[in-house]
């Protein structure tokens, strides 16, 4: 499917309705509802403790909501409530149709296993059983994320931070997922490495027509990667809209504060 037809698709890929999560008295996330369409990139911004990471975990079914539900359109076109999926189905979704890029690559990679096997694992998990083909596909993906194929047999513990993050992206995209969750994907990287990674992600997202939900506290990341932004504060979504609209014409006091806190380039 071309990017165009994906973007004009009228059926939402993921629908959140009235999502809430309480930890005892603390409401980490309250009444979040939105729809995400195929090929759409949504950034969730807000400062530490605003509930954005909790929301990401709710959306990716890693955490059960206290109220509300998340539905996802499976590859067969049927919208299913994630809470109704069996564990096997949910895990299958996680290693085929979804990707999850962690802030800390050590959480998303097998650090002691070679880069090739890190990328190939998802393929082997869905039954690929031909070493040569697995390795070829892994090489192609290393090239796409700009990692020297000569390092395919090195373990990521020998990689730099930026390379690890790119490897994590390759590992996630090899099964051609339709939705990728990213938790502060550029956090902890120095600025020049961040720029390269952002550029790469931007291209991959548009080439593959990926839908993505990106949690970030960095508005520059949101501007570069996302179509839409949700601003969170105190567990609530306080402002939402087109990325350039929210960032150029912020309406809420908190959003204005966030935007005005960016140092001019």
């Amino acid at each position, binding site marked *: 499917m*071309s*990017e*165009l037809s994906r*973007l*004009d698709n009228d059926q939402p890929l993921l629908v959140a309705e009235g999502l809430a999560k309480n930890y005892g008295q603390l409401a980490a996330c309250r009444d979040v509802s939105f729809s995400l*369409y195929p090929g*759409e990139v949504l950034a969730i911004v807000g400062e530490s403790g605003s509930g954005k990471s909790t929301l990401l975990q709710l959306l990716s079914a890693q955490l059960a909501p206290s109220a509300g539900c998340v539905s996802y359109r499976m590859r067969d076109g049927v919208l299913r409530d994630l809470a109704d999926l069996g564990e096997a189905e949910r895990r299958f979704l996680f290693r085929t149709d979804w990707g999850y890029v962690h802030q800390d690559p050590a959480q998303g990679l097998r650090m002691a296993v070679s880069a090739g096997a890190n990328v190939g694992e998802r393929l082997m998990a869905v039954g690929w059983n031909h070493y040569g083909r697995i390795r070829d596909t892994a090489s192609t993906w290393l090239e796409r994320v700009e990692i020297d194929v000569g390092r395919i047999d090195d373990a990521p513990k020998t990689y730099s931070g930026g390379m690890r993050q790119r490897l994590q992206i390759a590992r996630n995209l090899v099964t051609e997922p339709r939705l990728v969750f990213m938790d502060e994907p550029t956090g902890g990287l120095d600025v020049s490495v961040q*720029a*390269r990674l952002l*550029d790469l992600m*931007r291209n991959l997202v*548009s080439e593959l027509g990926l839908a993505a939900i990106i949690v970030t506290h960095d508005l520059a990341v949101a501007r570069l990667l996302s*179509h*839409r932004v949700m601003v969170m504060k105190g567990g609530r979504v306080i402002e939402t*809209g*087109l990325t*350039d*609209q929210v960032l*150029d*014409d912020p*309406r*809420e*006091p908190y959003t*204005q*504060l966030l935007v*005005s806190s960016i140092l001019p380039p």
Partner: protein
Amino acid sequence: MTAMIELANAEKTFTMHLQGGVELPVVRGVSFHVEPGECVVLSGPSGAGKSSILKMIFGNYRCDGGRIGIRHHGSVIDLATAEPRQVLSIRRSTIGYVSQFLRAVPRVATIDVVAEPLIANGVVREEARARAGQLLRRLNIPERLWPLPPSTFSGGEQQRVNIARGFISDLPILLLDEPTASLDAANRAVVVELIAEKKTKGVAMVAIVHDDEIRHLIADRIVDVTSFAAAA
């Protein structure tokens, strides 16, 4: 109605929460329309709200009242109330925006920066690059610069790259924010030519131009923004 753009009583106010909630009314009662093949130039002194109106038509600034009707895929969509994804769809296939400043995409070759809007709309890469090359040549960007990213270029060169990127597409509406600001006479003439070509193709345009000479060359109608100035 055949108008491509129809504004009716559109208004915009900034509320500066960080300055104690000061209300900054920008424009009010903005009403005009633009027909296919027509170039409307907004006039008025600095700070009158010309750029704000352009940004509202692009959906970059939110509209606080009234309506901004855009003809998109044969029907009229009100940008003041449109869903974000409708706005995106409009930007992809209906409205183009040529600003003064190139938002440089790092590491991408100039030729690809220019070709990108066509590729995004489904044109084959080779053809898109060929058309990008023609446009760059007309705008006097030497071919040896094409493979380089534009971030290293001079201000005038960057602006011409940006113009090429803005004019390459076949979008039915173009918004031009000072497209000739820092260009020399020869290149200004090229831009005037490009605008005339767009008119013959039926493209509706809204422009902000400070240069009187250019304004006379391109404007079919002039809308004076001072009349929309919101009384503070």
